[in-house]
């Protein structure tokens, strides 16, 4: 704004000199300038704001309204039902409760494992290995492929690949029907998410490890610290901010898992691996119960938002402390 007002005075005084204008004219000039600024603002911000309002904001808020109705999308009438949808979800809808618990379990397991493996991989390729660049590419590659295609790839591995390895090696773990049992199918989804996510998290940890000053490590080594002590007392505290970022990224993405869930198990066997996002999808677009689907979506939003706000607050606090 500073430059604009300066400019205004420059232009304004120029005009005054030239035409020796009256006060009223300079006021109208200021007004015109204001309108021009507002027009420019609309021109620059308007298009994306319009798309955003129509596609994100309005559906989001109408969705909240529909969570309290019996909307089914077919009959024209939408009746307000108060908290009935939520009561139904928490008392009768066992599938929803199970999906909720399963998604929570999945999120916790995959956050821990993805970060542990991602950090481990980062430590590996941070060594002076001859193949480090190649390995980095290999670890990262699965991340490029979308969850849907990854799920299909692993469907083949679990169904045919594991059976074949089991036959060749006789290891009982590979002889199980992985996708035919609720417990192993759950771990199947975890494996797919690890294969996809670990390389991504690794990239962020590599960047953090590269920022650890070598002098510190050298100094510690001279003081007689061993590899593990250096890792525990120097490297780990210095990459802590990256840990926060990675926890945040993995929490949000795990809680919202959909594609791999759909393509690997499609919720099966017998809906035992149906995560929340898939449960909402089924409720809305298969059962056509939009009102209840929206109630689920609202709960889903509240959980995701709470996690995010918590994460951001914690990481901000950390930044201030350090």
């Amino acid at each position: 704004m500073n430059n604009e007002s300066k400019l205004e005075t420059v232009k304004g005084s120029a005009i005054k000199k030239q035409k020796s204008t009256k006060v009223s004219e300079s006021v109208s000039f200021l007004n015109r300038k204001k309108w021009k600024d507002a027009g420019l603002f609309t021109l620059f911000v308007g298009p994306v704001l319009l798309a955003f309002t129509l596609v994100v904001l309005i559906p989001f808020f109408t969705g909240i309204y529909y969570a309290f109705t019996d909307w089914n999308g077919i009959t024209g009438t939408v009746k307000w039902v108060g908290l009935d949808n939520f009561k139904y979800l928490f008392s009768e809808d066992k599938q929803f409760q199970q999906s909720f618990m399963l998604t929570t379990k999945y999120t916790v397991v995959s956050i821990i494992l993805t970060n542990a493996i991602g950090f481990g991989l980062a430590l590996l390729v941070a060594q002076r290995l001859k193949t480090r660049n190649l390995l980095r590419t290999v670890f990262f590659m699965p991340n490029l492929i979308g969850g849907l295609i990854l799920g299909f790839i692993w469907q083949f591995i679990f169904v045919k690949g594991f059976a074949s390895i089991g036959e060749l090696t006789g290891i009982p773990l590979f002889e199980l029907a992985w996708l035919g049992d609720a417990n192993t199918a759950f771990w199947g989804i975890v494996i797919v998410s690890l294969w996809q996510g670990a390389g991504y998290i690794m990239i962020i940890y590599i960047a953090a490890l590269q920022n650890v000053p070598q002098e510190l490590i050298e100094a510690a080594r001279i003081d007689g610290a061993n590899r593990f002590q250096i890792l525990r007392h120097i490297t780990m505290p210095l990459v802590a901010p990256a840990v926060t970022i990675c926890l945040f990224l993995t929490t949000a993405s795990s809680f919202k898992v959909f594609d791999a869930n759909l393509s690997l198990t499609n919720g099966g066997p017998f809906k035992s691996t149906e995560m929340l996002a898939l449960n909402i999808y089924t409720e809305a677009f298969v059962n056509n119960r939009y009102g209840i689907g929206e109630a689920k979506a609202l709960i889903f939003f509240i959980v995701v938002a709470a996690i995010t706000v918590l994460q951001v607050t914690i990481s901000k606090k950390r930044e201030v402390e350090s």
Partner: protein
Amino acid sequence: MGSRYTWKTSIVEILAILVGLVFLVPFYYVLSNSLKSFAEILTNTSALPKVLIFDNYVNAFEKLDFLLVFKNSLIITIASNIVLVIFCSMAAYMLVRTKKKISNIIFMTFVAAMIIPFQSIMIPLIKTAGNLGILNSIWGLVFMYLAFGSGMTIFLYHGFIKGIPLELEEAAIIDGCSRFGVFWRIVFPLLKPITVTIVILNSLWIWNDFLLPSLVLQDPELRTIPLATFFFFGQYTKQWDLALAALVIGIIPLLIFFFTMQKHIIQGITSGSIK
């Protein structure tokens, strides 16, 4: 982090290579089996193919209508990137340079909305889009990508533009350049590094996205690669010879993109996530 290559490092190297091989095993299974006959897949899953059979690829390529779905994916990804870069850079620029309350409110709304999961929007969105008649249209989908990508794109541009000094723009304005001209001729070229990051992140997301296009594009002729793969798999369940070849065909464009842009992609992901 040893300074010299010792025998300890070589043990770590062997370990690392083993882990790398484990990561590659799924690719090996898919690739080698996609070149086998159906009977051989069933009897000989782990071994290399005895004879290379490329018929699977020819068949899958035709049945997927791959040229068409590839074209659809390409149009959607490129068009969405163009509108995202143009409109979000403009908006972010104006929001940074207009020091008013309204700019802050708009910016915070864009950022805050990033936490809304797609599932919380999709039901009313798809119903309204159906009523407005913008379902089944690639341009309707591009419009939605502009909206869904705007939060992150504006956020990244906003952070970058804050670091650009005003002096350049002031000089140009004094020389008689309009605000519009200042932005496109002076500011936008300076945004190149962050634009590369943004285009990479958005491309990977849009190219691989499944749920939104599956709800918007119901016409088979409009299908993208993930959609076509999904329906193909549903139709040829257990016909692994065709299904695996289709998966490989679906992955190839991504791998080409990755190997030509590897450096930018890794940099983009690092800077995109840290901000």
